[in-house]
């Protein structure tokens, strides 16, 4: 996902040098991998998804993107893509989905769900 | 140190005159001027005053003028409006007033016991020279008539503080007032 800084945050400088700064600041995010917090995960039913984007708009962590699916509706279809590294499993996407095609499923069973990424 | 109190009405350019006076003595006479304007609810036509202190050394005081050496009246109606024009004056205090009315001048001098009264019809001059009832340039010319500040300093400061053209017209008004100022 764009805008997620984890990749940069932990990158050491060329010479592995450090410097002292004053005041509240974080350059390493210990709890950045919020995907590990999930108990439930959203399981979208892509066949019923209209690609309206409500879930994308309301997602508090900004991990949902509506993408084109060339395999759906002759190439004009849309599906939701979720960044599992950061999805906290809060369920807001399931609540706001106007077609009720996102179902929250148990994380440990998540792999059984239809999954595209 | 000279302490000068300028009384007038909103719209007559009293505060601007006070600033230009400080400019004239500080920039063109190697003296030190300080303008302390009084601000409140600005209203056109309401009584306004501003204070100026002039000295040969930097002016330390950051306070209003309570015992003026010079009182300037931009509106001759000020005493009728209850403005205490003579408050705090002493035996050497002088008055500079915007009027051509000699009777009024005599009356004010006697009532308030100013040592001298300098007077000129600054409004008339302003109407003739700048076409507007803003007598501040002319009143500064009248002040130059007292010898406290040189007329050349006043005209230069006017030119430097107004837009081109406007400054020249005000400078002309000042010089005319300077030449026409009379003393009682």
């Amino acid at each position, binding site marked *: 996902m764009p805008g997620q800084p984890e990749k940069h945050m932990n990158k050491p400088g060329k010479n592995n040098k450090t410097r002292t700064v004053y*005041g509240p600041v974080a350059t390493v995010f210990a709890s950045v991998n919020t995907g590990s917090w999930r108990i439930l995960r959203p399981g979208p039913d892509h066949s019923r998804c209209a690609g309206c984007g409500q879930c994308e708009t309301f997602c508090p962590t900004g991990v949902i993107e509506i993408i084109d699916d060339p395999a759906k509706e002759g190439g004009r279809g849309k599906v939701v893509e979720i960044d599992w590294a950061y999805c906290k499993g809060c369920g807001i996407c399931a609540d706001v989905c106007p077609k009720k095609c996102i179902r929250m499923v148990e994380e440990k069973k998540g792999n059984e769900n239809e999954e595209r990424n | 140190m000279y302490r000068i109190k300028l009384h007038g009405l909103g719209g007559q350019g009293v505060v601007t005159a006070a600033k230009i006076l400080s400019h004239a003595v500080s920039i063109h006479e190697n003296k030190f001027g300080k303008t302390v304007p009084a601000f409140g609810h600005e209203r056109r036509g309401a009584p306004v005053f501003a204070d100026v202190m002039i000295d040969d050394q930097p002016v330390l005081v950051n306070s209003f003028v309570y015992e003026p050496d010079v009182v300037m009246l931009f509106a001759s109606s000020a005493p009728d409006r209850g403005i205490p024009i003579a408050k705090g004056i002493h035996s050497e205090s002088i008055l500079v007033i915007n009027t051509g009315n000699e009777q009024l001048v005599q009356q004010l001098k006697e009532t308030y016991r100013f040592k001298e009264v300098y007077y000129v019809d600054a409004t008339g001059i302003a109407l003739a020279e700048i076409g507007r009832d803003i007598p501040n340039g002319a009143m500064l010319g009248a002040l130059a008539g007292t010898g406290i500040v040189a007329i050349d300093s006043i005209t230069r400061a006017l030119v430097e503080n107004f837009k081109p053209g406007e400054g020249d017209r005000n400078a002309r008004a000042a010089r005319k007032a300077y030449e026409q100022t009379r003393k009682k």
Partner: protein
Amino acid sequence: MKKEIRRMLDGNGAATEALKLARVQVISAYPITPQSPIAEKLSELVVSHKLEARYIRVESEHTALSCAIGAQLTGVRAATATSSVGLALMHEILGVASGCRVPIVMPVVNRALVSPWSLWCDHQDAMAERDSGWLQFYTENVQEVMDFILIAYNIAEHTEILTPAMVCLDGFFLSHSTQPVMTPDQETVDAFLPPYRSKNLFLDPKDPMFINNLTSPDEFSEMRFQQKVAFERALDIIPEVQNHFAGIFGRQYGLLEAHECEDAEVVLVTMGSMAGTAKYTANMMRKAGHKVGVIKISVFRPFPVAQLAGLLKGKKVVGVIDRSAGLGAQGGPLWLEVKAALPDNDTRVFDYVAGLGGRDITEKTIETIFTGLLQKVNKKDANPDAPGVCWIDTHPDAMSVREVIVND
């Protein structure tokens, strides 16, 4: 070498000129009387390209300072200015600037706080923020407004300080008073004040930082301690920068200024524009044979304790003028500092509250205070003075100034 011209500026004009000379690149200011001319003049400078900067129009002082902080963290000098309730509305964000060590320099045009509503000068607005972690400078005249702002940048941005600074000027008495001011040219200021460089925290997409994150009890005290150390270092660094300034511009300033104190029987401690009037009055009283002196506090945060104690050593009677009420305290904020600076000797320190809500602190007021202090010198009574604060210029009918008609 030194290129300065004498110009006529009021306090707001001098503040604007100083911000321009400091080459601020982002401005986010919200107008409030008597600061408005600063916000207006800066916008004119931007529109006319006399100042190459972005002007962010904001809807409040809270946002004005928030924008300034964000902008400055990208590596530019950001400017804002305020007064009175505007400063109060900044209260939360003042702590963000100081805690995140963003060295913004902000003119504060001192005006009373509500209520009663007042447009006019006293120091309560800045006093209410005296523990906000900002350096506080108080100016006596318009020249100091210009000079202190330039000096404040060099102090605030010092690697050991990294602390924002308020440069306080008395509303109307300085903000709207036109005075001759030696105004330096850009080249000379550039030599004194190098281009801004982020020395601590910064916002850069290529090297991300998460600034102002939640900080646990494990580290909070430590970060406050860092600020405390900066304030202690400032007591050494401020005079260094002031001396550097004097070397270039020829005007010497200090943490405080002593006027005729050496042989003075009584000394009056002042702050802001009243200091000039007090010095003038002291000169007049000396001509009449009275040994009186004046101290002007130029830097209130950090408070120059040792320097003040040194100057007041051996003085039996000291007066303090507080231009804020200090309600419920043992005295006004300045008196508390002076009193605490003199713990172990027998100096008696008297507090005078004066000049609230625009009341003029006149030569008469100062003279009355000096006369009272001189009388105390020779009083040998066990309890020569009633304790408490003297409201020297408050009218005797204070408790009955307003009567209303009773509608039974």
